[in-house]
């Protein structure tokens, strides 16, 4: 394993020190691994707290700032943070209007946020939780852990964040967050595995002719292993998987997301294929993101997330945002 790190044990705090130094708009509690807006909570504004395992940068710390999150809790690589972090973040961002927890649907994240929400509630903070579960590669069912939360997390954080800035009440912010999740689906493809510092070796082996279809964002293998194909075919395959679960039509918000090790030039090639595909379906990408936003360390590959927009979601998406990884309108 060759990584630009100082020590396998200090990867997360070392990176958080860099985040703190790079972004004056953020306040970073390195010991507790929590990233806050430097400006602190705003009276009357609902607080947004998210978090999860590290290794998905810029998610979540890169989305803390005006128009998105108020705080993000960083766990170890691919390990959800602990309740203490969430409780502290929740207390710090609450200014009476209550706090929304944005939780990716993984057993670890769910259980830890659940414990934190209970204890925060006992401490008098009004907490609502929103589960993000957009990954169609995982069949949902009552008896399983359900679908994973992946790319749609960014959409939920941006749109709920914009709603919160308008001074909307907690119930309203939670409502729109759930609507974004309900209207969004994702599918991911890996061209290579990733290597976690702790394991020190690739999470799986893949021949030069093979790919993994239906991967998540934790270096896990996908639902199936398949033969490498041209970008256009891989994109159509992902779009069909999404369409099968939630028919794509009308105006959409589309993200072609890199897994961390795939260069931007390739993501643009994929995006060109996405637009072709949407046209065939009579739909269009009214808004888009192309880049590395929800990553899996150094994995090569991509994921596509499609959200069916309506007038309200489009307006909230376009609202000003000022975070390290997403910025427009100010």
């Amino acid at each position, binding site marked *: 394993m060759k990584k630009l790190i100082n020590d396998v044990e200090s990867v997360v705090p070392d990176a958080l020190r860099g985040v703190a130094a790079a972004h004056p708009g953020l306040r970073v509690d390195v010991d507790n691994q929590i990233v806050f807006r430097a400006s602190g909570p705003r009276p009357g504004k609902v607080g947004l707290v998210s978090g999860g395992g590290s290794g998905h940068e810029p998610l979540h710390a890169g989305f803390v700032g005006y128009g998105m999150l108020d705080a993000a809790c960083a766990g*170890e690589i691919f390990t959800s943070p602990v309740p203490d972090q969430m409780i502290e973040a929740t207390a710090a961002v609450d200014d009476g209007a209550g706090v929304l927890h944005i939780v990716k649907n993984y057993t670890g994240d769910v259980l830890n946020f659940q414990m934190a929400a209970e204890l925060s509630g006992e401490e008098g903070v009004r907490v609502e939780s929103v589960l993000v579960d957009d990954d169609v590669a995982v069949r949902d069912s009552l008896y399983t*852990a359900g679908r994973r939360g992946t790319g749609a997390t960014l959409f939920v954080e941006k749109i709920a964040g914009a709603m919160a800035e308008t001074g909307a009440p907690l119930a309203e912010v939670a409502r729109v967050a759930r609507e974004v999740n309900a209207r969004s689906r994702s599918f991911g493809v890996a061209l290579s595995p990733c290597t976690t510092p702790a394991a020190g070796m690739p999470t799986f082996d893949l021949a030069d002719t093979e790919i993994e279809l239906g991967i998540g964002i934790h270096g896990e293998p996908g639902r199936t292993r398949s033969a490498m194909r041209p970008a256009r075919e891989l994109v159509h395959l992902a779009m069909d998987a999404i369409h099968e679960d939630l028919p794509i039509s009308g105006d959409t918000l589309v993200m072609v997301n890199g897994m961390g090790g795939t260069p931007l030039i390739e993501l643009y090639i994929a995006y060109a294929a996405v637009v072709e595909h949407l046209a065939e379906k009579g739909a269009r990408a009214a808004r888009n993101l192309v880049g590395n936003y929800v990553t899996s360390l150094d994995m090569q590959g991509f994921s596509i997330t499609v959200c069916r927009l309506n007038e309200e979601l489009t307006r909230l998406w376009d609202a000003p945002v000022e975070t390290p990884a997403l910025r427009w309108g100010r």
Partner: protein
Amino acid sequence: MNTAMDTALFAAWIEETARTVAAERERLTGLDAAIGDADHGANLDRGFTAVTTALADRAPGTPGSLLVLVGNTLIRKVGGASGPLYGTAFREAGKTLGDTPEVSVAQLHAALEAGLAGVRKLGSAAEGDKTMVDALAPAVRALEAAVQDGKAPAEAIGAAAAAARTGAEATIPMQARKGRASYLGPRSVGHEDPGAASTALVLSALHTVAAR
């Protein structure tokens, strides 16, 4: 060993667990790499290292308070799925023991049963879902049987540890329905569940100290 277990023995159990988890760290992470996200060994090692420090800081006076401290520390330091689950198991077990200074095998069984119930409630996993429950549940049953047969602690705990190991191995052919492994669907078949494997380690650590 005398027939009742005191605080020192429980402290020794946790110490031995920390030692084996550290020793088996790579293997557990390897199991998790196959069907999860390659961090289970690192997670438990981090947790039990913190537990060791916590116990060194202030050694609790009773087996019950000791297990509660272990549980709280795991919840506060591990994260992931295993943190809350193992934490809850130890917390519930500890609470069941109350402030008794010495623990009989029957009480131990009641405690572990409470721990299992806590894990079941929190994670809503049933046996056969390919989780730590598939190691803990048979262990609790084996302990109960040993109590009925009036077996001595060391022997009873040995039976429980053996049942946990068998239960862990039995997860290999299972298709996961809970936790990350469930995302793999049919591809989760053929691998031992990391959490079941670590549960077997925790119980064999107890047997090691009980047999001294």
